[in-house]
């Protein structure tokens, strides 16, 4: 089973996923029509990602009075608009707020782009990942473990970022060396 996961530590809040999503689903750039929403937390400029988790036991599917929500072979719960009556009950039932309304009072939700999610493709910082369960699970563990090992969760003096910056300094010197005698 393929799943979509978010490593929230990697997200910098650039909103490119929202623009890609709204384009993919309607040819327009509008974050309000995106199936994934990035809420920016103003105090520290960190972000919370709101997106469909494609629950195994999905509240949206259960509450739909006309059975318009069905799981497709990519694992996504997809709304069949030929049945949908636009009651938006699914949006109210979703425990994660992952179903939005479009401007015609219809619910819209993530359909995993039929198995090739565009948001995963555009994300510049590998914050959104998609793949077999065991791979996503492994990636998540690795990201969290790196954080814990380098103390990015709490602890004032974190060696993690200093080390990364030092590596950047060194890499820049490497580039200078590489460019010595460059003929342009």
């Amino acid at each position, binding site marked *: 089973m393929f799943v979509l996961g978010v490593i929230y530590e990697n997200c*910098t*809040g*650039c*909103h*490119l996923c929202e*623009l*890609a999503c*709204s*384009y993919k689903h309607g*040819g*327009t*750039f*509008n*974050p*309000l*029509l995106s199936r994934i929403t990035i*809420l920016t937390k*103003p*105090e*520290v*400029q*960190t972000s919370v990602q709101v997106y469909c988790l494609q629950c195994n036991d999905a509240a949206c599917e259960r509450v739909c009075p006309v059975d318009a929500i069905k799981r497709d072979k990519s694992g996504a719960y997809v709304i069949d608009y030929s049945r949908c009556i636009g009651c938006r009950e699914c949006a109210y039932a979703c425990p994660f707020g992952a179903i939005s309304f479009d*401007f015609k009072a219809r619910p819209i939700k993530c359909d995993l782009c039929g198995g090739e999610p565009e948001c995963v493709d*555009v994300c*510049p*910082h590998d914050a959104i990942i998609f793949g077999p369960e065991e791979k996503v699970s492994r990636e998540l563990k690795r990201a969290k473990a790196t954080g814990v090992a380098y103390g990015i969760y709490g602890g*004032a*003096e*974190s060696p993690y*970022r*200093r080390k*990364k*910056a*030092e*590596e*950047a*300094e060194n*890499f*820049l*010197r490497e*580039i*200078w060396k590489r*460019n010595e005698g*460059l003929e*342009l």
Partner: protein
Amino acid sequence: MSALSEGESEILFIDLSRGKAVKQPVKPEDTKLYLGGRGFNSKTLFEMLNGPIDPLSVENIIALGNGAFAGTALPMTSRLHISTISPLSGILGDGNAGGEFSAMMRYAGYDGIVILGRAERPSYVWIEDEEVEIRDASELWGMKSGELVDTLRDEHGDDVSVAGIGPAGEHLVRFATTMVDKYHAGARGSGAVWATKNLKAIAIRGTKGVEPADPETFYKLSREDLEYFKKSEFVRRIYSVIGTHYGMMSWYPGWKYFQSHLGPDDLPEGLRPRDFAEFEVGRTQCYSCPLACKDVYYLPKSGEYGTSSEFESIYALGSNNGITDTEAILRMEHLADEYGMDVITLGDTIAMARFLHEKGLISDKELDGVSLEWGDAEGQIELVKMTAYRRGFGNKLAEGYRNFAKLVGKEVLAYSYDVKGLNRGWYEVDFMNGIFTLAHATSTRGADHLRGRSWAYWENDVNMDPEAVKRMLEAGLPDYRKDPVGALIEAERACTLADSLGRCKGSINMWFQAVPLVWKYPVFKGTAMLLKAFTGMEFTEKDVVEATDRIYLTEMAINVRQGIRKKHYDVKFPPELAKTERFRRQVKRHWEMVDEYLERRGCDVETAYPKREALERLGIGKVADAIDGKDFPEWDGPPLWPLESYPGGE
């Protein structure tokens, strides 16, 4: 949907004196001629002002423009361009800030907001799509940038974007900035203009989105550009890790008022990228940017969070003042954001004061007990506050750089390394084949690095992708080693273009960033393809180049009306050096380059006025009507007010 070609976006004129908002549709032909953003702003300023004006008078206007590609998935297109007549320099004062405002403008259906007149009482403007409301802001007046944004988000929703001013703007500090979403500063001096209009903020929310004329092609090109940055090793391992602290290693920050410059191996502890990384708790960026060039930092001593401690703030507030205390520099940078002040002018003005004090040109008596010892970090934090509120010695510093020097005494002006009132350090003409000094001289807002300088020699591009630079040179990009004037003109075009598209020129200044797809379709072909796909109008590379030239000459004409003449394209050195043969020769070379520049730009070599024939060739002969044969009072900075007449001034 708001696509430029359909004339569905509007320019919003807000007349605060009458309490009225008027909307005008954007004409497709204007998009073709001026693109948007800086182009629209400069056109508006030229048409609506009759110069020369006192920038702090009610006649001044503020133009906000979001740029042609705002709100789209073309990465890095969220710069809000802000233009006015600057209270710091007395000429065109413009600049751009990031954040989400520019995208929100587009989603609300506006490509320009022009602010005129003066409200009777402190006000703010609330915009939600078509609805525009001028509201009472007496509760907001006095608030710092952070509190202002929080308060307006409590009132209007957490997804609104806010542009406004902090206390420095309210106190008419001449280098107060427009602050967007707390941390993004633009157009030094514009903050004071907001205050003269009794305007504290604009909060905006848009719901409409934007649809290109040819979405498929536009998205395909945008993705191509995005992938280029995502795949770059330079971006992943340097840009997105240390952001503009890269500059500390690469751009030779000034030390103690430009008395020397620090190379990568001279950086004292406290000023290296790794030292700043210790305070970092996250990374962020502006809307639609994949680069994460901005750090989010936490200051344990004061318990504050701040964002984007950029190279400029570190050199101006830090090294140029002999300060190496990392946390203190971050604190000052954060305070400058909170008060809404430009860090370069702030830091360099204080550095100049220290230098003059050391030389005995400022006496202890004038200081009211303020310390001007090099490296006094705690003292400087105090000075930053005093400047924002115009208290004591801060009242003089608040006049800003050249104006401050003028206040100290006419003989001191020789130490003000400015061109047209803006400062960017001093350099030898021989350095980089003259492009630094020429770029500072020809910039239409006064000396700085973002009008063309850094692009004329593609220094940072070479570090990211030397092969692409080769392709650009092969495609006809002039080489500064053979044709410095041509290289600068092309670089000025790139910057004018970026500012008009709403595209970021790069916090590490690069062609790859300023000009979309330049790495693949050099030089402006990629831009022409994107403009065509977005607007549905025909756009050739020649159209793009001509649009940037049109904008640049219009800006020159704005400055002509503010009294700028040929002599103001000058170059400055420390007075002791200027007398020597070595430097006299360099001055001569500088003026030769200026002559060649003016000639090639289509300006009169004697007066530096844009020539009628050049303007007519670009289809803007009306600009010539306004300046031809006319004489305007010679520029000598903005008119300075008596110090006690400023709000809070002591």
